[in-house]
């Protein structure tokens, strides 16, 4: 059985669909999500993806039997592809001047210049938006750059910070506390607050599945 569905409290089900760390997790999760959006069970109120999970929240009193949903989703699951091509590629300008560059370089036994070159050469995918509004977890980080989170998170990380947390790289959309290693910053606006006011999903620069490339720009260009 490829999926497992368990209750999570009285009104939600947690769907676990892929063994941990599976490369096809994103494609499978997206396929399940789309299937559920096209054929929503009665009472389904919200779908929230994790890396290898989907949380299904139902209007109180309407949650279906997880065994029934296992049968339905299991059937849908067998036919799905394990890859999904990105619909678009975003190019993100980055000024690589983050305070944690030396620490990332030291841990990787590379020079700062090599760290920047490796990070800017990567082909990334938006695996998940989470943690904070519009925060993209990007997969595809070169293994040499995998860096544990800070033992003590910073109380404030500046807006637009480009950072590395474990096997992911990401961008802080707004100033917040955070424990990822800061390697640079982008001048781009990650969440459009005008569109947030009109409840438009286009408010978020990144959408799940987007391909992302970073382009190093000189420090002067930011001013």
């Amino acid at each position: 059985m490829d999926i497992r569905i368990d209750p999570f409290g009285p009104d939600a089900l947690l769907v676990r669909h892929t063994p941990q760390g599976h490369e096809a997790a994103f494609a499978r999760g997206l396929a399940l999500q789309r299937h559920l959006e096209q054929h929503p069970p009665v009472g389904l109120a919200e779908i929230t993806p994790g890396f290898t999970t989907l949380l299904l929240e139902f209007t109180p009193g309407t949650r279906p039997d997880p065994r029934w949903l296992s049968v339905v989703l299991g059937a849908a699951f067998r036919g799905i592809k394990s890859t999904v091509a990105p619909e678009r590629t975003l190019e993100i300008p980055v000024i690589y001047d983050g305070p944690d560059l030396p620490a990332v370089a030291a841990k990787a036994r590379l020079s700062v210049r090599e760290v920047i070159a490796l990070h800017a050469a990567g082909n990334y995918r938006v695996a998940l938006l989470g943690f904070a509004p519009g925060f993209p977890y990007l997969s595809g980080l070169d293994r040499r750059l995998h860096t544990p989170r800070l033992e003590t998170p910073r109380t404030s990380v500046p807006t637009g910070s480009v950072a590395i947390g474990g096997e992911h790289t990401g961008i802080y959309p707004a100033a917040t506390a955070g424990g990822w290693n800061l390697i640079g910053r982008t001048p781009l606006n990650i969440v459009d607050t005008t569109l947030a006011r009109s409840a438009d999903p286009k408010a978020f620069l990144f959408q799940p599945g987007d391909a992302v490339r970073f382009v190093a720009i000189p420090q002067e260009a930011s001013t």
Partner: protein
Amino acid sequence: MSVPLMELVDHGLGLSLQDLGRRGWKRFGVPPGGALDDHAARWANRLLDNPTNAPVLEILMHGVTLRALRRVTVAVTGAAPHVLKAGRGGPWHTAVIEPHQEITITPPQSGLWTYLAVAGGGFAAPRWFGSVSIFPRGGLGESLGPGFVLAGSEAATPRPDSPIGERWVDPSEIRNYARPPALRVWPGPQFDLFSTAARAAFFEQPWRVSSRSDRTGYRLDGAPIPSPALTLPSEPVLPGSIQVPPDGLPIVTMRDGPTVGGYSKIGLIDPEALAWLAQCRPGQQVRLELILGPSHPE
């Protein structure tokens, strides 16, 4: 068309506008938001014939002062029940405030959060992804400060024959936040990964609400419990999710908490019980009680 109703004179220990939150935006990393004590917030609106999700002020402890800019009918529920009419008409009540009259939220005897609603459909405020709940940590809106003008409908001013300026909640609905019941807990997705001893220690001891608690999460202090040595790929969480990080001290996700988390979740506080936890002050004891229902993993 909204009109100015009240002006914030002193923001005290803090306050925000809240409704019952937003649905459908967690997939973009936007937490649900909304009143932490939705029981009290709903009653503030019901007293005024408002929709139960109308925007209300959520006020932390004491010190907030508001000045009426016109004649308005308001309702107060939650932690500070006697703000407007001490000794008259009972707690959790409505009142008519005259122009230039000031209301100050006095220190509550128990609980943390007081709710103030206004008649005519509630306060008018910008919505972020469909909810007035601001989220400064995520770049959505800014905290309210002195001089801020709260707007609403002209219908906030009572008609001469309106009965709603003299209402109060039935005492059976008014909560004594000093004595919360045992909080009912559903088993979480990683419940089975906790050892029998860890589970026993979790449910048998009384926990104390930590002072490091806010709208994003309430931390619990007590004897640490052994947490499974496991890094999960981040999973979606719900308000009420109880995560146990490696230090063994639980963190309960609240309504402004991160939408995903990577720590093992031993349980989920029942949605009906979460408002009780929200009103517990730092240092206050809470007991947790496992629900052994059809949802218990076999």
